[in-house]
């Protein structure tokens, strides 16, 4: 049996083991990979940056724990951007299992800002600077209802407070007060936002999606229905990079943890390994086939 025959018959568990090693080693012994930003991410970042001051950033947490690794860093980065710019931020969840993730991200980022705040103006306060509406169903009712009055769709927030009593809701009545709504999703929910919220009410939309579904969403970016897009962990890393550069320019050097950027070294080594597997597998296939031909 030649080496090429053996390669063709290799037990897939060896492949898994190699992937474990090439992913784990760069995490333990990290080397820095600086993500090069792409136009879809830059457009989203620039839009958040250049929105009128009175417009809010709304984040729809449309993912569940199974896609947390890719999408949670996006949520954190967008929250940091919104809070750093002093914008009103609204958060809701379209998937019930996303509620805990949304709360975790809000708690983490609010703590990052409040622990460094020197005055009340620097801090972020629930009900004043941000609101967590929570979850309700069905999505059609939520998306259409938010165009009329958000407090009607979410009479109480996630913590049980009446939303009508929150001061932030005086400036966040419906889609007219929203500068950008970003759907961070592991499914096709961003398309529902286009269908119901954008087609009827004209709200500006962007999406943060898993890499698996990135190819499906590019047409909506090309048509301008999404102002920008973050695709997978790489998209999150690019956004972290842009935000970090902006905060540095502003003189804010907080050295916040950037989970997606940290993962890029492992992502790179894993991709190299997979490319090597594909090339080797193809070489082995063609050589063994050529030998078999009479």
């Amino acid at each position, binding site marked *: 049996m030649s080496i090429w025959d053996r390669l063709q018959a290799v037990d897939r568990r060896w492949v898994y083991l190699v992937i474990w090693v090439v992913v*784990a080693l760069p995490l333990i012994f990290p080397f820095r990979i600086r993500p090069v930003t792409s136009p879809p991410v830059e457009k989203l970042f620039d839009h958040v940056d250049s929105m009128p001051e009175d417009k809010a950033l709304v984040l729809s947490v449309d993912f569940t724990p199974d896609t947390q*690794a*890719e999408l949670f860093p996006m949520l954190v980065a967008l929250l940091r951007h919104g809070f750093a710019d002093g914008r009103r931020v609204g958060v809701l969840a379209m998937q*019930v299992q996303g509620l805990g993730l949304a709360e975790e991200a809000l708690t983490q980022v609010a703590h990052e800002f409040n622990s460094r705040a020197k005055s009340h103006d620097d801090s972020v306060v629930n009900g004043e600077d941000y609101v967590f509406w929570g979850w309700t169903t069905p999505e059609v009712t939520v998306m259409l209802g938010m165009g009329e009055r958000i407090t009607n769709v979410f009479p109480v927030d996630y913590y049980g407070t009446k939303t009508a009593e929150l001061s932030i809701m005086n400036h966040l009545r419906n889609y007219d007060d929203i500068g950008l709504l970003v759907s961070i999703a592991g499914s096709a929910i961003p398309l529902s936002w286009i269908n119901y919220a954008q*087609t009827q009410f004209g709200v500006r939309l962007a999406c943060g999606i898993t890499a698996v579904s990135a190819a499906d969403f590019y047409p909506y970016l090309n048509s301008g229905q999404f102002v920008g897009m973050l695709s997978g962990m790489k998209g999150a890393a690019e956004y972290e990079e842009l935000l970090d550069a902006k905060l540095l320019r502003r003189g804010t050097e907080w050295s916040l943890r950037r989970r997606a950027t940290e993962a890029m070294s492992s992502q790179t080594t894993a991709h190299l390994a997979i490319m090597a597997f594909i090339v080797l597998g193809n070489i082995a296939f063609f050589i063994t086939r050529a030998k078999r031909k009479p």
Partner: protein
Amino acid sequence: MNLSHDPWVWISAVLTLAIFSFLYKENPFYRFAEHLYVGIANGYAITFYWHRILVPSLVRPVSQGEKLWLIAVAAVGLLYLTRFIPKLSWLVRIPIAIVLGYSCGAYIPRALDAQIIQQLVATIVTRSSFANVWTGIWAVLILLGVIASVSYFFFSAERRGPLKAVSYVGIIFIMVGFGASFGYTVMARISLFIGRLQFLLGDWLGLVK
């Protein structure tokens, strides 16, 4: 190494390893973790549906004597359960028809605009498409790609002459699309694995800062 002292982190780590054990072979630990996940996810969702939807929107107002018409709505909703009673199972068509009618009415006109008309508009090449050389090239390429790919799925005429050539170009565009999707899929799966390893090596074992 700085092992976590949080019992929840340990439970999470053990369950992650139980799921990963499937990579070696099917085993009871994997089965246990899989069933536990499905059960907890459903239990969590049902709890929220009860506390966040049914109690505030139905149980509370009706028990306070308000919005009594909701009882009729709830009764129609309960007809879903007749599926378990063979003689009455036809009644399930009533709530399904209502939901289907509402959903189609709400969805179809908006989807036509958002997913067909807007997408068609985006493929039209205009003078503004040539704001710079690259946007012009991409606009023309998208137009060609759409025409060629659609022609591949045109089955009303035999594939001969120009149609054969154009549909062959369509295959190339479709294959490039599949390649991009596959590449993105690999990236996504690796990302999810990295996320778990960040947890195992960082939050659990403390090997990653």
